[in-house]
């Protein structure tokens, strides 16, 4: 009786050992690093605009130029351009994370791209010097606030002209036509926006892209970031399934990672314009006259060739449309 008790105790003890010994300390689960400012799920959905809050409009129509461009350095007295000329620098808002449009060249530290070149043309027209510019780097969400606060003269930052935005700022005529598409890792199985149901899809805060994703019938899970390159980081780290925005911006991201691709057709129209304060309509007319000139004399085409043509295919300069 006593012996068997000892035996049982021994067996139990051994069994206890063999169960508890291996893997006593649980491995800490890794926490993946995330870009600063990332928001996801319902919190990323922009507040919807009440129906009827924005009147119908033609987003492409802008203010008509009043006469030919004044000579550089001789802006008419009392005009917004004169105020800028007297200040000595054009203050602009650009992106530094949108490859091909507005980005910081890591090799030189200089800001470059199609949008930046449009602004340099404006500085050239006002001062006769394309370098008379002070750049303020802004995120997409800051584009309208920096205009309404008067912090910058012009914003050129892959900005789609919409009737809603026209309530708050002026836009120039269209300088680039684009449309929203989807970008994924190669071999992801996602073929277009219709396959995004339940997938984690990234876009920058305060953009039309995220607003369009929010109303997509497929109902993706939204992930909103501050800069487009943050989306690429998350895609490369496997934290999201897709990025969706204007094809030009996506082309700039694909150019940085050959393992990614753009899929499906464009499902929106995104006419890009430069934003200018409502209190400077003369500057809008001035830039429109300049755009008309650069589209006619081949400067626009040269910029387009330099930054976008190899990736976006040939595109004629978008025609100017004016308000009646």
């Amino acid at each position, binding site marked *: 009786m006593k012996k068997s008790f000892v035996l049982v105790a021994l067996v139990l003890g051994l069994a206890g050992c063999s169960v508890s010994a291996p893997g006593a300390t649980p491995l800490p689960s890794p926490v993946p690093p995330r870009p600063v400012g990332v928001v996801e799920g319902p919190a990323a959905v922009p507040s919807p605009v009440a129906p009827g809050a924005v009147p119908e409009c033609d987003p492409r129509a802008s203010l008509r130029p009043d006469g030919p461009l004044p000579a550089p350095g001789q802006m008419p007295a009392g005009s917004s351009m004169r105020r800028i000329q007297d200040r000595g620098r054009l203050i602009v808002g650009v992106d*530094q994370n949108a*490859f091909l449009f507005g980005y910081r060249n*890591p*090799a030189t530290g200089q800001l470059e791209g199609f949008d930046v070149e449009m602004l340099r043309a404006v500085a050239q027209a006002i001062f006769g010097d394309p370098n008379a510019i002070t750049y*303020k780097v802004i995120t997409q969400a800051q584009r309208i606030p920096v205009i309404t606060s008067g912090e910058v003269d012009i914003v050129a930052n892959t900005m789609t002209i919409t009737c809603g935005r026209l309530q708050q700022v002026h836009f120039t005529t269209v300088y680039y036509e684009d449309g929203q598409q989807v970008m994924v890792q190669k071999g992801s199985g996602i073929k277009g926006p219709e396959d995004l149901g339940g997938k984690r899809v990234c876009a920058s805060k305060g953009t039309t892209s995220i607003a369009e994703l929010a109303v997509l019938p497929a109902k993706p899970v939204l992930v909103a970031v501050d*800069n487009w390159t943050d989306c690429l980081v998350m895609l490369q780290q496997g934290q999201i399934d897709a990025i969706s925005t204007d094809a030009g911006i996506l082309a700039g991201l694909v150019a940085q990672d050959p393992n990614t691709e753009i899929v499906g057709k464009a499902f929106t129209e995104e006419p890009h314009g430069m934003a200018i304060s409502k209190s400077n309509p003369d500057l809008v007319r001035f830039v429109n006259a300049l755009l008309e000139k650069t589209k006619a004399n081949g400067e626009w085409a040269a910029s387009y060739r330099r930054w976008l043509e190899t990736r976006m295919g040939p595109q004629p300069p978008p025609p100017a449309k004016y308000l009646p």
Partner: protein
Amino acid sequence: MPTVLERARTAAAHSPSRLRSLGALTVAGLLLLGLVGGVTIDNRATAARDLATRSEPLSLDAQELYRSLADADATAASGFLSGGVEPAELRKRYDADIARAMASLSHATEVGGADAAGFAEVARNIPVYTGLVETARTNNRQGQPVGAAYLREASGLMQNSMLPAVNRGYRAQNARAAADADAASAFPWWLVLVTLLVGAGLFVGQRDLARRTRRILNHGLVAATLAAALALGWAVVGLGAESVHLSTARSDGLDQVNVLSEIRLLALQARADESLTLVARGTGKSFEERFQQTTAKLSGSGGLFAKAKRTAPDDAARGLVTRAEESHQAWLRAHVKVRELDDSGDYPGAVRVAIGSDPTSAAAAFTQLDTGLDTAIKESQTTFARYAAKARGAVGGAGIGFGLLCALGAAAAAWGVGQRLKEYR
């Protein structure tokens, strides 16, 4: 029914039993004194040792870890600002920072600090952080703007998760060092109480014995009294010296180390903010505002530099602080220049002044400030270590010695009372 007291009185009326209780009480009292005194002294010696060899070095480890990591992050941001392949000296500085961080971390983990979980979190994140920085570098070298996004993610990890964890560890460790210092110089109330009781007992006992036996002195009890007095003398001198040395170690060493460390961490924060203002390029107002807030904490009559000068123990230490403050002023002048250039649109010029190798650049002034603070902190640490060692020496072995002396006294008392008891047989 007779009470306990009445019975004791009856017993005490008869001399032999009275003597016996006197002897027992004296022996018990001396043994109690030995125990309380020995434990008290030993506790204080242990606390002094912990302070000098554990809690204070660990708090320095945490401080060094914070400095290395914050500097690595600021250096990575400077490298990004420089454009292209970052200068070799920045790369070297970053590598040295990471190596130093790993060394402090592994030492802190080995010793086991007050905030082991926080250090473990940092240990998990260092390879993740360096991985992100390397990815940022690779992309930068290929001219891809996504490199900047990796650097932002890395910096976010550092600023929002790693540095706060180190800071928690640092504060916990500092609190422990302060607690050890308090314990090592706490007033020995129990010892004083027991000493008074035993002293009174010995006095009353000897007077009583002298009256009853008509002999002035009992050799045993006299020896016991002498042993107790010797033990107490040792305790008073040892504990007193320990307190004095510890108080010097705190005021001239530890407090100075703490205020200088705080200056250093704030300076690092300000340097990171200076770089980040330029990285954000025109939309970095919040960083510049924080830079100004930090500067306000450092300068002026109520600032930390002024405090460090006030608390400096001697002219040499004050001189080191003054030199560091001058470097800080030079840096502030360079910073004004950086802001002027950037605000007037000369961005490349602003970057040059911020990170260039010119002696008037912000980078040069900051390096000088950091080196100056490092020297001043090391000096104060040496002062601390010197006095902490003296404090340990003052009570080294005193605990056991005290206990042994009291035990000897107890034995002598027992013998002395035993001699008297024999006379009754």
